[in-house]
């Protein structure tokens, strides 16, 4: 974990860190490798940008941005950080939460992962979750709000498909 102690302490005033850590799966889980959200195929959307970002801890961080073909300004960003374990993916999720200005995020759908949060109504849509060894952010990225929950579900479905294959 690269987060400094002061930031972690501040985060602890906003979130139940012990409770979150208790949610980390104890049993062995499938570890996803090389997941590429840019391969998602969604009608009416196309990939406009794919980036590989650098992290101090060298964990792979891939970003894909999708643009709506028919709705100018509507974009969705998917960030996937690949970790070595569920415990590390929670650490990454905590970093994501630490970098969110809102006093507190709402809980997200439990179906997405062992920990999930989302922006409340009124904020640009965004959803953040830890699933197995992945830390995932799906955010409305353009000048017009785009619903993000369907995209998060697509990511989960693609992971499931990848597992079956």
């Amino acid at each position, binding site marked *: 974990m690269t987060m400094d102690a002061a930031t972690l302490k*501040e985060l602890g005033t906003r979130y139940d860190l012990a409770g979150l850590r208790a949610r980390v799966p104890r049993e062995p889980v499938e570890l996803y490798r090389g997941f590429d959200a840019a391969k998602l195929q969604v009608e009416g959307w196309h990939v406009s*940008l794919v980036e590989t*970002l650098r992290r101090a801890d060298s964990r792979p961080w891939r970003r894909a941005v999708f643009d709506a073909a028919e709705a100018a300004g509507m*974009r969705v960003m998917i960030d996937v950080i690949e970790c070595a374990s569920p415990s590390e993916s929670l650490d990454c999720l905590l970093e994501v939460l630490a*970098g969110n200005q*809102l006093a507190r995020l709402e809980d997200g759908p439990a179906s997405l992962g062992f920990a999930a949060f989302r922006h409340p109504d009124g904020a640009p849509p965004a959803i953040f979750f830890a699933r197995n060894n992945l830390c995932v952010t799906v955010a409305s990225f353009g*000048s017009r709000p785009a619903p993000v929950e369907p995209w998060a579900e697509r990511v989960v479905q693609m992971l499931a498909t990848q597992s079956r294959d």
Partner: protein
Amino acid sequence: MLPSPEGTERKRGYAVRVEEIHFNHDVISASGDALNIRRNGGGLPIHAPEWRFGQSPQPAAYARNAISGMVTIKVLLRGGPPNGKLRIRAIDAYLPPATPGGCIGWILSLIAAIVHALVGNVLGDAGAKTVQLDANGDSSLETFELIHHKLAVASVGARTTEWVWQARVLRLFARWREFDRTSHRIFTLIDVPRGPWEQDASFNNLQLPWADALEKACTWAVGAADADAAAARITRAVNTRSNQSYTPATVFGFDPPYQLTSYMTHLDGGAPFVLNCTDCANAVTTFANLLGCDLWEGRFFNMVTRKFLTLNGNSNNAGDWVSWNWGYHEICWLSAIGVTQPVYDGCLQLDMDDNYADNVHVAQHPIKMNFGQNAPGDYRFRLIESGTGNLENIPRRRTVA
């Protein structure tokens, strides 16, 4: 314009040319030559010679406040008269455009002079010196003093110097003859870049100033004559990029490194994208400190804000005046974090209208405002409606990637 090179040297069967020009010939110092820089977040640092015959020229950067005494370049010549000697110099290729007489002519001349001052030659001329050539007609790496340069007084800018290289044989009444022309992209900064930027060129240092970031910072802060003006212009620029809008989530890296390459990719791409206060503080600090400013990022906590003008908002649009319940907000601090310190905020514009109950708003960029407490001119008073707003005394300058 000067005539094309048809001088004495060519008629005598040789054609001297410029082979190399070294601007950053001393990587330890920036007092008499250029700074250590790199092209961008990939690849390698830019090494002298920045200009080499037949290759794409590389830019150079100078820090105004670091310049003291003589500024020099180093030049290698090829193809001159074997074992000969020549007087060599470089002069500004710029000639003011022909203008009509009278008032209009005077105004046009003035405009041309201003444009030239902002974007034209800042290097002055390479002073004449006698160069000894070897049996192949090549020189050794010769040091030339820059004369009439403005490097020690220049404002922030990204300028292009066009040089005409001239030679003269060592004979009474010999005339200067043009033999080459070179063009150079030169960045002028207020001071040596501060953190996260570094000057250690002993390895492939990613924190050396990036030329593509310099291009942007120098454009945003063009004409700034001191660090305060540069920081102010960078803050305004970050706040008003037309394809940005606000989201509470950090997009370009909360934990270091700051994803500067990605931020610039999105800026230049033109498509809309979102970012938050940490991203804006990173951008302001990183670009301003690239010009020699002394900013730090720092947070404060727990607040419900007054209405402010959102990132890239239109002050005449009521919907762009917003309020948030924030766990933290991150801004830029001059020199240190503290209640009495001046701050810069590229993420929003404050409402300076005293009546917060009505819909009248007076937008102001938070530029070198005292953080303060509850005085009407304080940043804190203008931003926070309720909450503690307690400071986290951890100054940050995130490394770049």
